């Protein structure tokens, strides 16, 4: 019995959601009075691997191979499964990221394991049951899921658990499992990443604009507000449908679901399908000129007013606040 956590990396750096997964896995290992092992795949340097110790990983398996430089879910699933068997791990934790979603189900099948995708809390283990709460119905509800299999996999939602420091000295062990060529059938040709921006699913703060902004030419103030806050930008569906903003920024039922600490909705009415993707944000601010806009019903703070007057004032206030 032990816990294994997989930490995603991009260009040799672990993601914040990965450190969150380690924090979460450490809390599970402590509750189960068992060991935690972390696994990293790809070319990650020693200093970065040591960082995992900060969140409680005392042992780190380092899989460094040119074949595994870019993410191929089939191969990664085989490697993680082999590591789980070697470490006698019956609980595997990873991030519910875009890549995680392609990875965890394959590991689940290999280990005949029940899988909770999108966990939002630590497991409850009273009465001998293993219960994990997850998002369901596009953020409109939670489903408490019981994992009844011997092996269990939990994919943690980004920003749901946070970072918890638990410093230990991490011992790094190189691990080089055999990789089948059939596991490398999908070939990554190209990765396009907008590196200068905060990535939306991982963002703690998000500034979002809707049709009330009238046109793409008015996004300058949204970008400025976001950059002052260190926030990611998002938008409603009609905005991306009209190509005012890229589809990757579209949040909601048919876009991505996010749960940042702060979501600022500007000129968005708050349709049920939009709320589905953002209602688990910790604090919601709504700026809308219509006092009857449904979004105000789920907001913590609101300003009834014209975005073109309010947003510049916020930008000014933020500049003053930052000194």
């Amino acid at each position, binding site marked *: 019995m032990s816990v294994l956590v997989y930490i995603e990396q991009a260009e040799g750096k672990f993601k914040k959601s990965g450190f969150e997964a380690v924090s979460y896995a450490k809390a599970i290992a402590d509750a189960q009075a068992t060991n935690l092992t972390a696994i990293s795949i790809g070319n990650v340097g020693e200093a970065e691997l040591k960082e995992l110790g900060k969140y409680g990983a005392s042992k780190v398996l380092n899989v460094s191979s040119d074949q595994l430089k870019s993410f191929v*879910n*089939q191969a990664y699933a085989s490697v993680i499964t082999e590591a789980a068997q070697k470490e006698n791990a019956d609980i595997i934790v990873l991030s519910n990221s*875009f890549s995680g*979603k*392609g990875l965890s*189900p*394959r590991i*689940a*099948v290999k280990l005949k*394991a029940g*899988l909770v*995708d999108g966990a939002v809390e630590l497991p409850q283990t009273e009465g001998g*049951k293993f219960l994990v*709460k997850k998002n*369901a*119905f*596009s953020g*409109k*509800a*939670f*489903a*408490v*899921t*019981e994992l*009844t*299999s011997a092996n269990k996999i939990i994919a943690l939602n980004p920003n749901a658990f946070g970072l918890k420091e638990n410093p230990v000295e991490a011992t790094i062990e190189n691990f080089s499992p055999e990789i089948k060529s*059939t596991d490398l*059938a*999908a070939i990554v*040709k190209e*990765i*396009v*990443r*907008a590196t200068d*921006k905060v990535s939306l*699913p991982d963002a703690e*703060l998000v500034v979002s604009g809707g049709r009330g902004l009238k046109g793409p030419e008015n996004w300058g103030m949204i970008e400025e507000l976001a950059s002052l*806050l260190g926030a990611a930008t998002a938008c409603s569906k009609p905005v991306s449908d009209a190509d005012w903003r890229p589809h*990757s920024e579209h949040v909601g*039922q*048919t*876009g991505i*679901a996010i749960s940042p600490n*702060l979501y600022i909705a500007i000129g968005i009415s708050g349709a049920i*399908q939009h709320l589905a993707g953002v*209602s688990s944000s910790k*604090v*919601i601010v709504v700026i809308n000129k219509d006092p009857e806009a449904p979004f105000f*019903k*789920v907001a*913590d*703070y*609101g*300003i009834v*007013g014209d975005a073109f*007057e309010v947003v510049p*004032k916020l930008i*000014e*206030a*933020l500049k003053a606040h930052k000194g």
Partner: protein
Amino acid sequence: MKILVCISNVPDTTTKITFTNDNTQFNTSGVQFIVNPYDEIALSRAIELCEGGKGTVTVINVGDSSTDPTIRKALAIGADDAVRINALPRDAYFTAYQIAEYAKTADFDLILCGRESIDYNGAQVAAMIGEFLDIPSVSIIKKLDYDGATATLEREIEGGKEVVSIHGKFIASCAEGVAEAKIPNMRGIMSARTKPLQVVEAADIPEVAKVVKFETPAPRSAVKLVPAEEAAKLIDLLHQEAKVI
């Protein structure tokens, strides 16, 4: 080419979500069920790829007979035939197993799913089918070009995209961008009634996960309004009271 599209039967996106039986069951009373919106996208792309006699599209659903109207809708959109595995979909593992078992009996070149079902939001089924069949799976694709043998796909990643190429059989789960969802026309609706719908019994396998209880999010307290003229105050509130900036 032969394409299999997996469709799930889900509550309409405007449904108010409530539960019965001590919050253990989703309350289906008065709920309109639809083809999962992402599966419509997958189906629409499959139909485009097969246009002009280049292939056939089969849709598959794991469900009891109450899902037949949803399957007929998929046939009306343009699938050639349908299969229903006669069982309530217990968990993603069970659902994926049934679909994989069926896929082994017929020689599909490509299997498409939606990115996730909008009820349980698992995003699990596609990659599980891939593993059961030991073929590549690509989750959450935004673009799919396929000539019957080689495919180029674009997959969403945090803050960007990845271009993937695959030769041979594979499965992918589709998100927005892959195709515009097609709307059934009158001819489609008429012909859907007579298109073949085969019902197959499910295989029994052990359960690995089950939902024991649903919860609804705690209601938020009333909104605190800041007058528009004093917008600057909002920054102070977010800093000092909410402590998020």
